[in-house]
């Protein structure tokens, strides 16, 4: 019998599985291409397709021919140790496989690889005449920075209006933001339910929900709200019944201190759950700190967008800010979600994480949190195979007495 969780997984999986080279948020309107996961409420309200080429690259690494694709990406000759997902995105672009956009919007967030992709998009010869808008994401998180980012996002809207000759419908934008706030609230409710011991549902639904909500054609639609409400209702019931994830005896809860990547959730996490009872209770795609969009004025709305962009986008939160900020998030997650351990994949393309390893290790040691650093490529399983990763994690849990 197919339970509600399986149905929800299939529904979101179907939408996400269709993503790759097609525009992610397909819409009959013009097509805007970016190098980051921007303010999706704006294209949704404006009625245009929006694709993040980074996501396109990441999705590519989940394709059956991923290894071949990654090799081709390496052959393009962009920096050899660049993040693989971004390298694949560069390949898609250089190979002429990406649909020509009507407008390009790029920013430096969140990492140097994103900049490279942005630079390639902005200088790609066949798109020379495509209008381009560039934003600066500061490495700071204070009101001044949110206002600054908000101003740039507001300028981006004006730019869109100028390029496409059509004004933004501000009432529509408010409606979209109301719905978006509701969905974010639901995502946070699910996150809250994950704090229960044992964890009542596969914690990876946070990530799935986030991706479904932001990257698919159903973005910010009542369909997503319905999906999230069903998820929460089914999870609440399991919390009431004190049930854990079906078929799993929970023994270890840990923080996967990185984005999930493509192969780890499929080829590693499930096996860790099944064989060791070890659950990735939180990862950095799932971790949400979504402040509701302030709808009291246009300025407040854009400052909210700015805040979300700088502070609440998963990768920006992970990469743009200071090590202290980064460490505080780890401690907060470990505390709130009752994590027994922290596993740092140390994804090879993530310069930020790889620049903080000593400080994070020492902090974990000081706080008595078992911590394992892997050193893998979350988009290319050839760098560290699923078997090796599994063995190392298993040994780590055994030596720390967690299993």
């Amino acid at each position: 019998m197919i339970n509600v969780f399986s149905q929800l997984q299939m529904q979101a999986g179907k939408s996400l599985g269709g993503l790759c080279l097609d525009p992610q948020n397909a819409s009959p309107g013009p097509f805007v291409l970016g190098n980051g996961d921007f303010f999706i409420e704006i294209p949704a309200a404006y009625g245009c397709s929006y694709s993040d080429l980074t996501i396109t690259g990441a999705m590519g690494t989940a394709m059956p021919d991923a290894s071949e694709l990654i090799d081709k990406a390496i052959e393009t000759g962009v920096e050899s140790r660049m993040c693989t997902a971004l390298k694949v995105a560069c390949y898609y672009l250089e190979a002429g496989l990406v649909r020509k956009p009507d407008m390009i919007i790029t920013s430096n967030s969140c990492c140097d690889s994103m900049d490279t992709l942005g630079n390639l998009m902005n200088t790609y010869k066949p798109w020379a005449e495509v209008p381009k808008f560039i934003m600066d994401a500061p490495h700071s998180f204070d009101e001044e920075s949110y206002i600054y980012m908000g101003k740039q996002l507001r300028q981006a809207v004006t730019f869109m209006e100028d390029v496409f000759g059509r004004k933004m419908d501000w009432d529509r934008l408010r409606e979209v933001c109301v719905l978006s706030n509701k969905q974010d609230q639901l995502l946070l409710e699910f996150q809250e339910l994950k704090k229960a011991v044992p964890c009542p549902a596969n914690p990876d639904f946070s990530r799935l929900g986030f991706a479904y909500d932001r990257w698919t054609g159903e973005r910010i639609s009542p369909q997503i709200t319905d999906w999230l409400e069903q998820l929460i209702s089914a999870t609440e019931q399991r919390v009431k019944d004190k049930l854990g994830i079906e078929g799993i005896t929970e023994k270890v809860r840990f923080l996967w201190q990185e984005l999930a990547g493509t192969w780890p959730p499929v080829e590693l996490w499930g096996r860790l759950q099944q064989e060791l009872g070890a659950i990735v209770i939180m990862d950095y795609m799932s971790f949400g700190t979504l402040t509701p969009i302030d709808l009291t004025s246009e300025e407040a709305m854009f400052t909210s967008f700015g805040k979300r962009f700088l502070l609440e986008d998963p990768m920006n939160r992970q990469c743009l800010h200071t090590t202290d900020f980064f460490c505080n998030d780890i401690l907060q997650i470990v505390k709130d979600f009752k994590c027994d351990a922290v596993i740092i994949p140390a994804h090879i393309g993530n310069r930020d994480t790889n620049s903080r390893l000593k400080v994070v290790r020492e902090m974990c040691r000081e706080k008595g949190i078992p911590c394992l650093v892997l050193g893998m490529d979350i988009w290319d399983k050839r760098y560290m195979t699923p078997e090796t990763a599994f063995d190392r994690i298993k040994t780590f849990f055994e030596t720390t007495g967690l299993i």
Partner: protein
Amino acid sequence: MKSGIKSDSFEKFTVIAGSIMNPSVQECKDGGRKVLGYTCSFVPEELIIAAGMLPFRIRATDSESAGRADDYFESANICSLIRHTFGKVLNSEYDFIDGAIVGGGCDGNRHILDNWEKSPAKIAFLDRLFIPHASNNLTAEFFLGQLSGLKSRIEGYFGVTITDEKLWSAIRLCNEVRELQRELYGLRLSDNPPITGSETVAVIVAGSSMPKEEYRDDLKKLLRELQEVQVPEKKYSARIMIVGPGHDDTSMSDIVEELGGLVVNDLTCFGGKVIFGSVKEDGSDPLKALADYQVLTRPFCPKNLSAHPVINKEVFDKSKEFKVDGVIGQVFLCCETWGGEIFILNKELRDAGIPLLRIERECTADSTGQLRTRVQAFIETISGGAL
């Protein structure tokens, strides 16, 4: 390669560029002048000079090992320039500085500050300056706010007052120095210049490692000497431009010039990018003049998404002006920003018929054997086997 310059000024610059601590800095310290280090060429030296301090560009000169820095930075995935620079800090070679400003250009650079703050080498004044990643009026305005905050923190911590008058004076001084440095670069327009590319790197590096007035005077003296020198006739097999990140090491220029080529220009953070243009002196707000210069005028690091057209123009203009036969695009491993930039430039230069050799390397000089082979093949190719 050595041109055979006989000059006290040049000898002095060579000594200063070849080490971290140097006699000029020691003299400043002995005289009670404070030294403020900085890690990125987008930190305006003018602000530090106006505070009565000596700006000193933090670098990794002669580093053979990143040492303890590799505990902080994962060695396989972080640019060696960052690791080796921080290694110098941990190795107490920057103990003479009284504070440091870390420019948040690239990801690695940003984390020097984070790690510095957590390390035994921590010093009381460690500050950061966010570098904009787009060049327009709004980002220049935001950068002005950043500069203003930094100015206040310097004033507060060191108990100094940075007046507009002092800032204008520092701007005039730095503009004059940049102009002299451009004059030095101009000498290599000649087919048979009195100074080589390798020697020029040393002169420019020294400029960010000693008091500016002293440097200006020594540079003027050197220029006079170079203008008067009788240069023996020499035929170079290829005129090369080097493009890439900041590197104070001369190994690439040395290789080119030992192989019979000549480095006639560059666009690096210890070269063409720091001598570019001038800060406007006719405005009412010196801090705004500095912000506008840094954000709107200079060829930015490719971390800035508006940078490419300016970099492209500069490379093409200088290639033409200096009769460049080929460009060497030098990238440190794990530097995506320059890796991407050289990738783009390569396509554009190829279309224009200008050959580019792309080199991915570590910042240390220990891999020069392989580099030599590749550079030799490149020079042979572009010079039609004239070696």
